[in-house]
């Protein structure tokens, strides 16, 4: 005897399953392909966005500071624009710190960093003292205060030494952070930042070093050359500064550099 009601119910379930499965498969396929398409589109966009940063990375790795000063290879001129974006409060605190306290009076931290300074392209023949492997020694944090510590050791001025001791004062921890960041990513904007801040703080040796490093990584940053030349002048190496600027002007035609050249020659900048 047939149980028609039960058969009807079972048939309905079967029909539902039979129709649901292909629909579910189609929906699944559409969803999978849709996601795949979206993902590939996003990936393509990401690649397009990431390309410049990859180029910068490559440049940064390529132009790591080298030990040899007499680097005869011309530094590459890289066109990419890199924007330094430190935290605003950090910049503010740097400014406050540097304006409120003279760098000489408070030496809170002394870093010891061995930086082997590469020679800039235009300095290959003109800057003799840097030809020797000059090592900049910046002492690592020593919490002990040095109340009457000198602003800097001008050992390099007296004679070419194998190392330059820089006792840097001022907003040590903040600038250290930037240096650390620079050591991690070799971003020339960071090294330029360090150079500028060091110059502002009167740490001309460090300013010189970081300007040099910046030039090595990216040789078309005018500010970096200006800081480099200014630091040389401040360190009493006026002739070298003039030669450097002359070389730089010859291939860049920078008006800013020309202005500084005039100021140095006329004695307006000392």
């Amino acid at each position, binding site marked *: 005897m*047939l149980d028609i009601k039960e*058969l009807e119910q*079972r*048939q309905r379930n079967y029909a539902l399953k039979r129709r649901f499965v292909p629909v579910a498969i189609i929906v699944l396929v559409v969803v999978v392909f849709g996601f795949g398409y979206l993902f590939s589109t996003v990936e393509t966009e990401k690649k397009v966005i990431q390309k410049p940063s990859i180029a910068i990375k490559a440049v940064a790795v390529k132009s790591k500071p080298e030990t040899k000063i007499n680097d005869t290879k011309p530094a590459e001129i890289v066109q990419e624009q890199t924007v330094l974006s430190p935290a605003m409060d950090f910049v503010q605190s740097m400014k406050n710190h540097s304006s409120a306290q003279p760098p000489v009076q408070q030496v809170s931290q002394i870093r010891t960093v061995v930086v082997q300074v590469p020679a800039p392209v235009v300095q290959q023949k003109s800057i003799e003292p840097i030809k020797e492997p000059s090592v900049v020694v910046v002492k690592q944090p020593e919490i002990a205060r040095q109340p009457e510590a000198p602003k800097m050791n001008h050992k390099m001025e007296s004679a070419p030494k194998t190392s330059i001791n820089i006792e840097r004062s001022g907003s040590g921890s903040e600038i250290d952070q930037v240096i650390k960041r620079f050591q991690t990513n070799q971003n020339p904007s960071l090294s330029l930042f360090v150079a500028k801040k060091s110059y502002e703080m009167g740490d001309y040796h460090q300013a010189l070093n970081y300007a040099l490093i910046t030039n090595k990584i990216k040789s078309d940053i005018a500010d970096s050359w200006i800081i480099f030349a200014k630091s040389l002048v401040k360190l009493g190496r006026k002739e070298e500064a003039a030669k450097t600027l002359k070389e730089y002007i010859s291939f860049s035609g920078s008006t800013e550099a020309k202005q500084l050249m005039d100021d140095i020659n006329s004695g307006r900048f000392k």
Partner: protein
Amino acid sequence: MKVELFTKSRDSFLDSTSVENYIELDRASMIYKSLLEAVSKPMKMALLFGKPGTGKSMLLAKLYQSMSQNQKVFLYSTPILDEDEFFKVLAQDLYGIKYDEELNFTQFMKIVENREIIDDSIPFVMLDEAQLYLEPLMEKIRLLSDTRKVKFLISLHKTQKEDVVAKEHFQTRISKTIELENASMDELKIYIQKKLMKANCLETATMFTQKAIKTIYRLTAGNYRNTNKLLYAFFEIGLYYLANEPKKIDSNEASTVMLEMAAIHTGLLDA
């Protein structure tokens, strides 16, 4: 009136091997002729195999019916598994010798060998469901066929055993091997419609449109026995609806819902 029509239609799909229910399809007809031709020649053995429900038994029945008028043909639809009984039955049927006592293979072989063939009337023995015979008995059947005084047609399912029989033990003796297969969609349509028309159910025969045939083929894969079972249940359901919910019957086309219900009822669909 419609109840009677549905009842007749249902009964036409009763699963039976009666020759009256034999439906002549092109392929089956060709096979039949080929078998008929083979057995009329001097041969030892022929093999008919295929999946269950492909029409082997029906073909044997048809062959038996047409051959029995002219020659000594013996069809054993149910296997005789006991050896002694098997030889006794053969002695009785083939030669009219009745043995009350034990009759072993050696004794039966002597009887066979001593028989003289008159007018080329070699007895023809058809064994259905031969896959059920034990291997020693099958070997003895093979030896009997070697005497050329008995012809055998062995019908069995397409199983591993069949492969052994066909390829090893019987290979050299088998002069004709025929494989039966499930129906194609076109054959299935002809089969269903011929069956219904044979039962004078023209109205129901027209219900099986191409769409309905496609559904049936999907459910049965063209197997004749499964088709019979399915359509029997289909008309059974139809009879229920005629009596209780006549609106559910579509007289123009066999309903897919009813066919699927029938398939669920017969176990062809797992739902």
